[in-house]
């Protein structure tokens, strides 16, 4: 079946069975390997992408459900400059091995768009679905809390 949607601003067309996981379409068909498969069952958040701005686990979304939608992956997060969340992760040491980082950035970017000045508690809730085995979370939370403060926004 052919599914059409917009991915990182570009119209795309993929031919796959309709129940193919969005994650597999992104990685295997569109060769966007930024989104990672950590668990394949919705637990870890490494596959987080945004559908019409809303963060979701791409391992749980059949591609049929994104027909006509706007999908944003980590590859589409930066504009001319890196996104403030990416800059803050670099600045604050929020990434180590990096497997969780694309997903974390997508969750964090969605949070900051809605709430540019979140409390630490709000950051924790927004990122609770993104597991990280390396950082211990503290630096990630610092990075996200400071992302827009650092850029003066």
């Amino acid at each position: 079946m052919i599914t059409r949607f917009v991915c990182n601003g570009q119209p795309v067309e993929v031919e796959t069975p309709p129940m193919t996981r969005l994650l597999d379409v992104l990685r295997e068909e569109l060769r966007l390997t930024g989104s990672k498969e950590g668990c394949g069952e919705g637990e870890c958040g490494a596959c987080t992408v945004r559908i019409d701005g809303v963060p979701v686990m791409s391992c749980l979304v059949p591609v049929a459900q994104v027909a006509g939608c706007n999908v944003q992956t980590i590859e589409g997060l930066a504009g001319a400059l890196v996104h403030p969340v990416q800059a803050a992760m670099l600045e604050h040491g929020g990434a180590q091995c990096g497997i969780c980082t694309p997903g974390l950035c997508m969750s964090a970017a969605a949070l900051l768009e809605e709430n540019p000045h979140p409390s630490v508690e709000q950051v924790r809730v927004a990122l609770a679905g993104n597991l990280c085995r390396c950082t211990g979370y503290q630096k990630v939370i610092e990075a996200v809390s400071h992302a827009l403060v650092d850029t003066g926004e």
Partner: protein
Amino acid sequence: MLRCEAPVYRPRTLTDAIYARADMPDATVIAGGTDVMVYLESGSLKPTRFLDLWDCSGLRWQQFITGGQFCGAGLTCTDAIRSPQTHPLVREACSTVGAVQIQNRATIGGNICNSSPAGDTLPVWLALDAEFELASMRGRRRVPAASFWKGYKQIDLRPDELLVGVLLPQTTGETHFRKVGTRMAQSISKVIFAGRYRRGVEARLAFGAVGPTPMRCREAEAALVAGRPVDEVVALVEAEITPIDDVRSTADYRRKVAGNIVRRWLASL
């Protein structure tokens, strides 16, 4: 990655969905997919075809109606958390489901029909005397939450029916929700409690994850309304629930915790 070739039918209106359900009673219904996709990937689901309600208009709304409120089956947990109309108990339960990315897809209809005994919203529907509205080509019917879950993962939903939504009557009394799990996010409950109590008038003490279905402790409720001592109410709760030992917890722990939740709540009133 498991390859699944099954076709997907995606009705845009509720009428189309009901027709489609009559035509394909063998199809697996999918809404947000947060349960279905996990079953599919694990190989435990052997689908022939899918009926996808995600883009079906007419399921994703919430409205006050005479004598109460209607919540569409297609409301996501996030919709429910954000709507100012949402009953506080429903909001609390929805906020404990998974994490943000799950809440953004998980629907209340999916939670109800998946009918895991640990489904976090299920005791809430019991505590609020909810009725479920089911639709098929044969017409509509309403089933009280208290008789919808018939056994472990068995529900009163016929193969040609869809859940359209939940009717919440106007209710009174203090309410309380408590989920006990390993952590706040992404954890399946060990015990879930939803309660509603109006002194001397009525009480609902509803639990999840302490038996094959979500359940009310009716004897404990009666004792509470009759003004019996808290110890007695708690003892009845502990006797009425039927928890088991499993990977997440033990029966003893669940019994103890269930009693403590009720004791603490009653002490705080």
